[in-house]
C-alpha cells in the first residue's frame, strides 16, 4: 500500500490483509492499553480458562504506561514501551482474537509466526516522542486493574494516531529491512 492508511478497530482479517511492513497507518477510534503487569494478569486468566475483563476481539493493544494526567488534560505523556517484554503473552491474546499491538522494538520469532497464523499485525510508534503522541489521544478511561497505576488497562480514543507497520501478516519485518538497507560492513 502507499500513502497513509486509516484504520478503525475493531479490525477484521480484510482490514489488515493488505498492510505491508513499512506502511504508515493512522488509527482513529479506540485502542486498549496494557503493559507488563496487566499482560501477566491477562495471561493467567486465559490459562485458568476465565473471562478477560475487556473484550479484545478485533482490538489493538498499545504497550504504554502514561505519566499521571494533570487537571484539565486528557492524559499525560504516552509513548510506546519496549515490546519484547510482552512476547511471552502476545500469542495467547492473538488466539483470543487480538488483531494488533503497538510498541517499539522487534518481536520474537514465535510472536511473528503467531501473527501470521492469526492474521494480526504489529505496529511501532516513535519511542520518546511521548508529548507529541499524546496530542492524538482525545480521551482515556480506565477499564481494569486500576491498582496497577500506570500499568492499568485503559481505553484510549485516538484521532489519527500515527504508527508504522513493523510486522505484516506475511511475516515481513520493517526493522530487519531497514537495517539491511543502511548498514556498512567492516572488514
Amino acid at each position, binding site marked *: 500500500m502507499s500513502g497513509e492508511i486509516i484504520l478503525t478497530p475493531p479490525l477484521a482479517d480484510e482490514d489488515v490483509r493488505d498492510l505491508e511492513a513499512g506502511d504508515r497507518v493512522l488509527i482513529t477510534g479506540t485502542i486498549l492499553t496494557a503493559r507488563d503487569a496487566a499482560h501477566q494478569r491477562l495471561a493467567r486468566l486465559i490459562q485458568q480458562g476465565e473471562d478477560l475483563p475487556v473484550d479484545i476481539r478485533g482490538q489493538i493493544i498499545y504497550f504504554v504506561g*502514561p505519566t499521571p494526567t494533570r487537571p484539565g488534560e486528557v492524559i499525560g505523556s504516552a509513548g510506546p514501551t519496549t515490546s519484547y517484554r510482552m512476547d511471552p503473552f502476545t500469542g495467547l491474546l492473538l488466539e483470543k482474537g487480538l488483531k494488533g499491538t503497538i510498541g517499539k522494538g522487534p518481536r520474537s520469532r514465535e510472536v511473528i509466526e503467531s501473527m501470521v497464523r492469526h492474521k494480526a499485525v504489529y505496529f*511501532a510508534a516513535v519511542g520518546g516522542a511521548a508529548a507529541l503522541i499524546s496530542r492524538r489521544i482525545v480521551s482515556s478511561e480506565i477499564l481494569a486493574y486500576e491498582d496497577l497505576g500506570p500499568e492499568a488497562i485503559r481505553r484510549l480514543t485516538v484521532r489519527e494516531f500515527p504508527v508504522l507497520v513493523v510486522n505484516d501478516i506475511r511475516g515481513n519485518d520493517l526493522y530487519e529491512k531497514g537495517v539491511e538497507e543502511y548498514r556498512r560492513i567492516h572488514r
Partner: protein
Amino acid sequence: MREIKAELITSTLKGMVVESAYHLGEDVIGALKAGLERETSPQGREILRQLLENARIAAQGRFPLCQDTGLAVVFAELGQEVSIAGGGLDAAIHQGIREGYGEGYLRKSMCHPFTRKNTGDNTPAVIHVKVVPGDRLKLIFAAKGGGSENMSRVTMLRPSEGKAGIVDYVVGRVRESGANPCPPVIVGVGIGGSFEKAALFAKESLFRPLGDRSPDPELAELEDEILEKINDLGIGPGGFGGRVTALDVHIEMHPCHIASLPVAVNIECHSHRHGEKVL
C-alpha cells in the same frame, strides 16, 4: 565546617527532577539537529524531526518528554567540610525525588522486584555518594529510562582481547539492542576497575556533555572509532534503518586486575534527562 540545610538539598533535587523531565539539554538538541543534517534515511529524518518537535512542545507545555520519567539516580559529591543540618543526606534526596515526581506529574516507576507493587512515589532513588575535599555539595540527577537500562551489560573480557575486544563488545551490544533502547542512543562505556566500578564509570560517563571527548587522547580516539562503527550498523533513528544510531560514545577507564578486563556498556536513550547543581 560549612552548613548546608537538608531542605535545600530536597528543594534543589525536586527542581532538577521536574525541569529535566520537561527540558532536553541544548547539547542533545544540537546533536539531534546535527543528526538530521547527516541522516540519509527519509524515515530516520522524519523521526529526528519528530524528536525535535517533541522537545519543543514538552518544554513549551511543561509536559514530560517521555512517559518513562525514569528511575532516579543521584550522584552526590560531598565536600568533607560540609555538615548537613536538619536531616540526613539520603532522606533529603529521597524527599526531593518524592516531591519532584509528585508535583511534576511524573510517572512513578519503582516497584517491588517480585510482587511488582509500585512504591507510589518513585523512591527509593539509587544514590552514590563520594566524599571529596572542599565545602561544597555537588548533586547530579539522572532520570534513567527502563528500556535503555535493560539493554546495558557488564562483561569480563580476557585481558588478551584488548582494545579490539572492547570495540567488538560495545558495538555488538548496540547491534543486539537494535530498536529496543530508543535510538539514537548515547553510549556510556566503563573500562577496567572491577565488576561494579566499570558499571559505575559507564553510568557516570553519560553525564559528560555530548560532543565532549575524553582528556586521554587514546580514549578520545577510541570514542570516535566506536561511534563511527555504531553508526555504520544501520539501525538508525527509531531502529527503522539509518545512519544516526548513536549521538555519542563516552569512555571512562580505571586500572584493573592482571586477570581481568571488565567492560560495562550503559545505554541511554535520546531522551537524555539529567541535571547538575553545586550547593
